[in-house]
């Protein structure tokens, strides 16, 4: 269809569509909405979202929450010690300490990269980084293409 024909079709359809009157809403709509409004109005304040609670209730609930968390930490740690497992902080520190081989490996890797850069020149390092970056972008692009293809997005 040429441009003139397209414009004529647009005008014709526009005129037809704009001549349509409003549809009558179902009788039930008002009742449904008013029922939902009444249900909402009758809801007690504590069933509404926290942000709509009265200020005093918000402060009180926050204090209660903080006290609960503090109590759990304190009594939890005491119970831990009473059970003879020892200080939980010490346990956490021991777990962090067990990760030291990982840290050593990372340090070795950085040192090796530094050595290579020093001996072979920084251009090899840049080329390596470029290759790694390109591969990462290729993965992102492939993933995006698959996602769009699956969801039929354009």
């Amino acid at each position, binding site marked *: 269809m040429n441009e003139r024909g397209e414009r004529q079709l647009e005008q014709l359809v526009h005129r037809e569509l704009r001549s349509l*009157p409003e549809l009558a809403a179902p009788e039930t709509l008002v009742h449904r909405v008013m029922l939902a409004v009444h249900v909402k109005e009758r809801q007690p304040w504590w069933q509404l979202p926290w942000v709509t609670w009265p200020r005093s209730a918000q402060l009180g609930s926050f204090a209660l929450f903080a006290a609960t968390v503090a109590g759990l930490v304190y009594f939890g740690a005491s119970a831990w010690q009473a059970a003879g497992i020892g200080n939980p902080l010490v346990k956490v520190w021991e777990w962090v300490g067990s990760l030291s081989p990982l840290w050593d490996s990372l340090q070795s890797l950085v040192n090796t990269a530094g050595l290579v850069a020093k001996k072979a020149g920084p251009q090899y390092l840049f080329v390596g980084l470029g290759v790694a970056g390109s591969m990462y972008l290729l993965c992102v692009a492939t993933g995006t293409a698959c996602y769009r293809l699956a*969801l039929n997005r354009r």
Partner: protein
Amino acid sequence: MTDSQQFEAFMKAYQNMVFTTAVRLLGTEAEAEDVSQEVFLKAYERYAELKDSPTVGGWLKTVTRNLCLNHLTRYRARWRFFSEMRSEDDEEGTGPEWAAPDTHEKQVAAGEHRQLLEAVLQKLPPAQRVPLVLYHFEDMSYEEIATRLRASLSKVKTDIHRGRETLRRKLKLKMSGQEEWGGLHGAENPCPI
């Protein structure tokens, strides 16, 4: 008059506009009723500022449109997949069931024609109906529609063109230069599909 009664009167004044906008965008009355309810519940939350606002009609229309588009976006992958898989031939069979040709004489009244037009519009695939409604009823430009629907400009134009063609074909509307004019502005009856 209590607040509740005032709001009920407010609803009655705008419910047809909200419901019509929702039906034309969503294509089903049940979903349109759900969205209309959501719109009025939002309006109720802001009723204090809305009740005296001169732009309340525009506000309601915008909220309705946005909620409908959000609703469609929620099911976007599903409806786009099916609508775009559909061929032109399939579309021939998607129209509503009309009366037999011998009863057509009785359907020439404008009211009947409008009902048919409304029915054909609602039966259009969502990929065609939504941009068509946004363009012709909501006065949005092609670019705005493409941005809002996150589709390419060419796709929006193609879908709108296909929608118009379907309406023209199914209602046997005639353009100037052709023998007859159809619809409310001409003598042609809608055809049986």
